[in-house]
Every structure is written in structure tokens, then in C-alpha cells.
């Protein structure tokens, strides 16, 4: 027995979607979605849960993560209920629910708060630079150290507990019994999703989009690897150096195309960009660009006279690591991979 709660609709509309009430349950969206299957059918079911406010059912569901927002359903919906956008909003809502700090939710719902966080981190970086007497070497050293520490601590403090919460909501609470062996044997699904996002390939619409995504993920992870573990900014190896250039270039070039399509709003998925979406692409772009420039300035030997560039790069880095990665859209990438893994566990 589930109690109907019409107030949930108002809550969810703060995460983006607002037209789902128009749905008259024709099922066109589910029929048109190339990822929906007989065993796991969506998005109509999620719309239904949302309009009726069945929060527990939504929290226990992995389906929002199965959607790659091709937007087919939104273009087919006879009532313009924007089912694809609803799936996106549910992902944001779920991210907020998984996050034990509650900061994700606050930032999704309030733009001023997000801006304040960005400003605050910027002031912090300035203060640090001031403190370090703008000593470039010192700053770069701390910067490098920061990257490694930030990754480790966010992992431990934010991601691990959040993933455990996600696991609790979707596997434990609904009462699914999973033998331990299965946890191990299904690992493959997790890595494949993480790197290849292979499900997106099943989307009918656009192989190019999948390819872009794929390249971006590879580029981003490689850039992370080169800077953190190969210490790109101080490397002596030509190969590493060039690799770094290529990867950072990939990141900012692909993101330019992303920004471009968000601006044009041609496709359904680009129609409703939320601040969090903008932050994500713009910061990714800035990351790639400033990293590229910084190394370029090093190679040209003009960084010493252009310390502002590094301070800018560092600011972007800090904001990325402390705001966007733990509380923003970046988490979708992580949760989606785990969702596939958990879905595999739930399979009979």
C-alpha cells in the first residue's frame, strides 16, 4: 500500500523538470525509448512514481541511471511532458539523496549558494597565494600535493559513504538478497560502464555523441593521471609532455562542442540546461585549457612572468575538486557506473 503524496511534484520541480503532470500515461515514451526493456521499463513508470509522489519507490530505483538522455521520449510525448528531462531531474534528486552531507541538494536547488561556494574557493586560493608570497615553485608544489590529497579524501569522506548509501537504498532496503559471489562476478559491468558507457551505444540517436563522451572520459582520466601521477608540469620526458598536451587539448575541444550544443538547444537534452550542467562543462573546459596553457607557458618559459595563469588554473582545479566533483554533475558518472553494477546484482 502506498500513500499518494502530490507535494513531491513541487519538490522535484526544484531539480529541473516541471511538466510531468501533463502525462496521461499513454506509454509512448516507454515504447520509443531504445534502452527500456520488458524487464526494466521506463520512463513512464518513473513519471508515474513522481506524479504520485512515491518517494520510496524512486529512491529504490536504478532506472533513472539507465537513461542516457537521448531525448527521444521527450520528442515523442503527445502531451509535452518532457519525460527525458524528468529522468534527468530524478538523477539530480537521487544524487542529493545519496549525498550524506546534503550539500548536493542545496547546491542544485540554490544558484546563489553555488556561486557563493565558487567565490569562496577563489578567495581561499588568493589568500593562499598571498600567504605563499606568490612563490611559483611553492605554489605548484602545493598544487600538486593538493590534487593527490583532494582525490583521496573526497573518495573516503564523500564517495565511499554515498555509494554505501546508494547501495543501501537500492539493494538492502528493498530486500534484495545478493550472494557475495555475485558481487565479484559482476565487477566487470562496473568497469565497462565507467570507461565505455557502452549502454549509450544502444541509444538509437547518435553514435557521435557516444564517441565524444567516450573520448572525453578517456581524455579526462588520462589528464588526471598525467598531472597527478606523472607530474606533467615538471616532467622531463617528452612523451609524457606531449601526451599531456594532447589530453588537455581533447578535453577543452570536446567541451567547446558541448557548450555549443547547449547554447543552440537543438536537441531535447539541451533544452533545459540547469546551472549545474553549465558549471560542469565550463569548468571542464577551463581545466583543459588552463592546464594546456600552463604547460605551454612552462615550455615557453614565460610562466614565471605570468603567475596569474597558474593561480587561475589552481582556482579552477580547487573548485573542480571541492565543488563539482563531490557535489555536482561529476558524481553522475560515478553513480551511473555503480547503478549498472547494482542493476546487474539485482538481475535474477
Amino acid at each position, binding site marked *: *500500500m502506498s500513500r*499518494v503524496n*502530490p507535494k513531491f511534484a513541487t519538490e522535484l520541480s526544484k531539480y529541473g523538470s516541471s511538466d510531468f*503532470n501533463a502525462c*496521461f500515461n499513454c506509454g509512448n515514451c516507454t515504447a520509443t525509448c531504445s534502452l527500456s526493456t520488458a524487464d526494466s521499463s521506463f520512463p513512464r*513508470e518513473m513519471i508515474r512514481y513522481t506524479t504520485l509522489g*512515491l518517494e520510496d519507490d524512486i529512491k529504490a530505483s536504478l532506472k533513472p541511471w539507465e537513461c542516457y538522455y537521448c531525448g527521444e521520449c521527450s520528442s515523442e510525448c503527445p502531451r509535452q511532458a518532457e519525460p527525458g528531462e524528468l529522468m534527468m531531474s530524478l538523477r539530480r534528486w537521487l544524487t542529493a539523496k545519496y549525498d550524506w552531507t546534503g550539500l548536493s541538494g542545496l547546491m542544485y536547488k540554490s544558484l546563489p549558494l553555488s556561486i557563493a561556494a565558487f567565490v569562496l574557493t577563489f578567495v581561499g586560493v588568493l589568500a593562499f597565494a598571498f600567504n605563499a608570497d606568490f612563490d611559483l615553485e611553492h605554489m605548484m608544489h602545493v598544487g600538486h600535493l593538493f590534487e593527490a590529497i583532494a582525490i583521496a579524501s573526497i573518495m573516503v569522506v564523500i564517495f565511499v559513504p554515498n555509494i554505501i548509501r546508494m547501495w543501501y537504498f537500492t539493494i538492502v532496503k528493498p530486500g534484495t538478497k545478493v550472494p557475495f559471489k555475485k558481487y565479484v562476478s559482476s565487477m566487470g559491468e562496473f568497469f565497462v560502464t565507467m570507461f565505455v558507457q557502452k549502454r549509450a551505444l544502444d541509444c538509437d540517436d547518435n553514435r557521435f555523441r557516444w564517441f565524444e563522451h567516450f573520448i572525453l572520459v578517456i581524455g579526462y582520466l588520462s589528464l588526471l593521471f598525467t598531472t597527478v601521477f606523472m607530474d606533467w608540469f615538471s616532467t622531463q620526458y617528452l612523451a609524457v609532455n606531449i601526451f599531456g598536451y594532447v589530453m588537455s587539448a581533447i578535453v577543452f575541444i570536446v567541451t567547446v562542442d558541448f557548450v555549443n550544443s547547449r547554447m543552440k538547444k537543438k536537441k531535447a537534452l539541451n533544452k533545459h540546461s540547469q546551472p549545474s550542467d553549465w558549471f560542469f562543462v565550463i569548468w571542464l573546459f577551463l581545466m583543459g585549457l588552463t592546464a594546456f596553457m600552463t604547460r605551454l607557458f612552462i615550455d615557453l618559459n614565460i610562466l614565471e612572468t605570468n603567475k596569474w595563469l597558474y593561480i587561475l588554473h589552481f582556482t579552477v582545479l580547487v573548485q573542480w575538486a571541492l565543488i563539482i566533483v563531490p557535489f555536482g554533475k561529476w558524481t553522475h558518472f560515478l553513480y551511473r557506473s555503480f547503478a549498472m553494477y547494482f542493476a546487474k546484482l539485482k538481475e535474477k
Partner: protein
Amino acid sequence: MKQRIGVYICHCGGNISDYVDVEELGKMFHQEENVVVSKDVMFACADSNQKDMVADIQANNLDAIVVCSCSPKLHLHTFKNVAARAGLNPSNYVQVNIREQCSWPHSDRPREATVKAAGLIRAGINRVSYSESLENIELSVKKSALVIGAGVSGMKAAIDLARSGNEVFLIEKDFFVGGRIAQKETLFPTNQNGKEVVAALYNEMKKFPNITIFTGATVEKVSGSLGNFTVDIKVKPRYINPNADKKAVKRAMDECPVNVHDDFNLGLVERKAIYKNYPEALPDVPVVVAEALKDATDFTGKFASTLNLNEEAQTLSLIAGSVLVTTGYDHYQPKEGEYGYKTISNVVTLPELNRLMEMNPDKLVYNGKQIKSLAFIYCVGSRQTKGDNKYCSRQCCTSTIHTSLQLKEKYKDIQTYHLYRDIRTYGKQELMYAESSKQGDLYFKYEEKEMPVVSVDGKSTIVKVKDYLTAKKEMEIEADLVVLVTSMVAREDATTISELFKIPIGRDKFFNEIHPKLKPVETVIKGVYIGGTCQGPKNVSESVQSSLAGASKITALLKSGTVSVDPIIARVDADKCTWCGKCSDVCDYTAIKKVLFGEKHVAGVNKAVCTGCGICAPVCPENAIEIAQYTDNEIESMIDGFVMDFDIKEKGAGKTVEVEEEGKVGMKEYPQVWREILAGMTDEKNTIPEIATNSKLASELVTFHLMTMNRYGVVVPAGMDAKETYYYYKVK
């Protein structure tokens, strides 16, 4: 017995002649002694053939004709008119159906089809030889119409009838006009106020001196028939002195100490024993419930000159040429306990909610509690596959959704839940459905086999529903008010009207028209029409459409002052009849009365009333009744015709008749349309569109006939046009 019969057997361009050997049959019947003309024709209905038939009838002095062609449903009147044009009484015509009931269903066995056709034609000849010349029955009609029920349907019809120059009597059972629409504050789809519509119609009626309105009036007795109904009506007293001062009447209303049940507000409140349905109700004279004021002698004493408690009911006799019944519908009354109705305090019906909304302009309050959420349960008393009301009430989905929009507009902070079986917001009403979902109204689909359950849980009312939109999950909805969307049912006293006028009632208890498509407002009772919701569920615009259709039918009927009715009716052989009364008992229309015939009593048929159904004929122990054109002689001779032996020459050597080789059939004459097509074929080569333009015929028609003409070798294809879309045809 007819001696000079003409028989025409139609090829129907091959539809018949491909399977039935019409040429042979034509020759065969030529040898019959009373058959003067017997021909096979390519298209019997073609203008040219009709002209030839007229010439034949006149030249050969034929006294009866038989056309053996398609179903009489298609061309009976065509050939009756041919007879009439030739000066022959149309009832000396018989059509034999050798297409739908012979060549087509037996296209698999042409030989046997020919034998059957011979039997059918023989039967037709036998029947026509017994035919009599019947004259249409002419009745004079009074140019006045009686409209029963002053709802929106009745009032609109009355205005229309009056505008066409008829005397109109409008009878309303209630003391105020308007019917059900006065009970709804805003009507979909125009959002007009129901009462304003009523007032506008009433004021319009008042402009016509030829409309007489009787309120508080009921029909008591009906006699007479088409053209001349005599209807006795009883007009109940209002008990108000007609000369009383308006202000005094107003004061009496205000000061009245006794309260009575308020029918208009569906019993949600009480009203004074001197009341109007609502302040603006029309006619603008209140009504006194005299019975209730019996003991309030102080009060009645004080207003002795205003009230007239001794007023008596009046009986009047009205004469009308035709009657339109627009008595409307009742709301279905849920049984006690049906979804908690009457057992749980906050369960009401949709009509009750509509009244509540009008009584609560600012805040919706029921039982002293403000209502913020409502759950509507649809189809209550409709679509009961096992119950009485199997029909869908048609307008309630829209009414509910419209009410839901109104609720939101009027009271803002309101949540509605809709438990439906199917949403039927056909036509433009669909837009309201979309608007409702967009404003956040929640919809749940239930199935009849798993009905929602209303229960009380502490202070709140809970509706449980198995929701078919959420994989049949059990849902719990908390609602301040549960609203049952009740159906439209026939008026309780519909049976009285039905008995008085003999209007048949359907299984759904609404009045029955003759045919939903072909005679949608006519009843089997000549001169009696139905309109509006007394016929079945309708919204206002549909109600008005049907009542206006009835009004135009009546206007057409009354226009000339006389009507002619079909002579196919019962007749009694007075010599045989012993007046046992059995026929009179079975006749649903009371067409048979005891009459004096010489010394004895016999059954007499009222020509204006008899429908010719024939139900009386088989029950007569003396076999004294026959229906014109269905006499014993006619029917029995047909049977004899069917079973006669025939000598039919068989074509070819085979057992079955082969279809003639294409192009070899000789044409004695071309149908008119062929000639037009041929005239349209200007030079050597023509495509279908060219021929269609030249001959000013529709291109489908040209296509169809060219195909047949091609088969008969009249035209042949002559290559393709440049674009290869059309064949050229040329005359062979």
C-alpha cells in the same frame, strides 16, 4: 388479379448477369400468360430505362410492374416513382432482390443462382398480381405543437417552433423553467452560467405571443393521433393571489416560519415553505407548499390577502398536431453504502458538489470543514457490465474534469484525485483533460472488477484503489471529500409519459427513437418526437441539436396542414370479426377500438395510429386481420412461387453456367452515364481525368464505369500517358 404485368430483369452491369442468366430468364417469363412485357436490361435504374419503362407502361397499358434487381432498400422508391410517373398506382409495384439475396451470395454456384432467381421472380409476379391500388392516407393536422419539459432542450425547441409560425404549448412539471442546467453554476465548454442561459431563453420565449408556458403542469390524458392529439394537462396551484402586491409576496417569503426539503439543492439545505428554486428563477412568482403551512395559522392569517390557500388545480385540454417530448434525465442516486454514500459523512455526488460550489463562493466548506482535497470516483451507476445501466453517461468525464478546473480557479489551493475507468473527453473537450493534468490533478485507472474502496481512518477518509497505471499497485489516497460521479438515468416518471403516448422505452429505460442513424428523433408513434436527454445521455449542445432536429421535423410536418401517411396498415374483415378483443390487447399503440358495424361490435383500426407492424394479425382467432401488401394471398402466393418447377435452358455443356466471355455481351442500350462518358471521349485517346472533366462527372464514377465498359468491349485501353499514371481509353 393483375393481367398485364411488366417484368424487368437487371444485369446490373454484370453484378447480376455474371452469375444469373438474366437473358434466359427474361425470355422464360415472357411466356407467362399474365406477363405482357419481360425484358433483361443493363441498368434498370438508368434514366434511359426509367423512361422506357414509363413508355412501356403507357403503350402496353400495364397494370403492375416487377423489377428484379438490387435490394429494395436501394431503389424501391425509384421504381415506385416510375410507376407514379406512368400513371400507375405505386403499390402495384414489387421489387425482387436478385442481387444481394441471389447473385452475390450464390456467386459460387451460378447455375443454382439462376434457378433461385427464377423462383424469386415468379414469387414477385405472383405477389404483384394480388397487389391492390392503395391510396396514401391523408390526415389534416392542427398547426400547433406540444413540447413537454422546459429544460434547455424544450425551451430551444419551443422558440424554434414558434419562430416557424406554429402555436406552441410548453408544459413544465416543475414550477420554474430551466431543468438541470440551472443547477450548475458554470457549464462547459463555454463557462456560461446555467441560470443566465435559462433566463436568456425564457426572455426570448416571452417575445413570442404564440408560445404558452404552463409551469407546475403534468400530462394527464392523451387521445387522438397524428395531426390531432388531445392532451389533458393538470396545472397545480401556486397558492399565491395573482393580484397580490409584489412587495407583500416578498415579505411573506422572508417571514415564512416553516422550512421544507430543498429539491433544487438536492437536499443539501432546506428552503422556506414559500420559495423560488433560486432568487432569479423564472417565472418570477414563488410557490407555496400549502401542506407545510397547515399549522402556521398565525402566518397564513397575516398574509391572508397575499396567499390563496384554497386555490385548486386546473385541468385544461390542449389540441396539438404534433408532440415533442423533452423531459430530460435524473441523476443516478447511489445506493446507501455504495462507496460509503450516506454511511460515510463526506461522500457526495457530483451534482451535489456542483450545488455546494455555488453555495460556497469563497471557501469550499462541507460539514463545517474546509475541503482541500477531493477524490472523484468515475462511472458510478454507468457502464455496469453486470448491472442495469450498461451505457456510458457520456458527459460525466467532461463534467468532472470541468468541475476540477473550476475548483482550482475558484478556491486555488485544492488537490483533486480522479479515479476513472476510461477518460471519454471526446472532441474539443480533450483540451480540458490536458489542462486538468497540467494543473496537477492526479489520475488513477481502476477496473470494474476491482472497484475503489472508501473507508474512514480516524479523522481522515481514505480511498484505496488498485491503480492500473502503476502496475496495479495498491494506492491510498487521503481526501477531505469523496465525490461520486453519478450517471444520467431516465426520469422516474418516464414510464408514465411512455404509457400515455405509447413511446417505446429501451432496455436502458430512456425513450427509443426508430433508428439511431436514419430516424434519430422520430418514434414509432406518428407525430411524436423525442429530443434532449430523455433519449439518452447528452451534453447541452447535443441535447439542443436533437431537440432542434425534432422541432424542424414538426415544422415540416405541420406546414401544409395535411399529412399523408403510408397506407400499409391493418384492416379488419368486419364480417369475420367477432370482437374478442385479442387484437386490441396486443396492439401497443391502442390503434384498435371496439366499433359498431351494423348490428354487431367489431374491431376498428385507427388509420392515423396504426403502424402496420402486423402484431395483431396472427393473434386473431378468426383470421380477420390482414396488413395491406402482406395479405395471405400475397405471402402464400410468394411461397408457391418459390417452390415452382422451372424449365431453364442450360448454357453451354458444363454443369454450371460460365461467365460469358468478355466483350461478347450484346448491349441493347447503354445506360445514361455510359453515354455521357462516351460523349466526353473527344478524340482517339483520353485518360480518366480528361474524360471526367469533359463529361463533368466525378472521376471515381468514370473509373468505375470505364472498367465495366472495358469488360463489355465498349471501350479499350490505348496505351499509357507520358507519366505512366493513366491508361488512355478509346472507343472500340
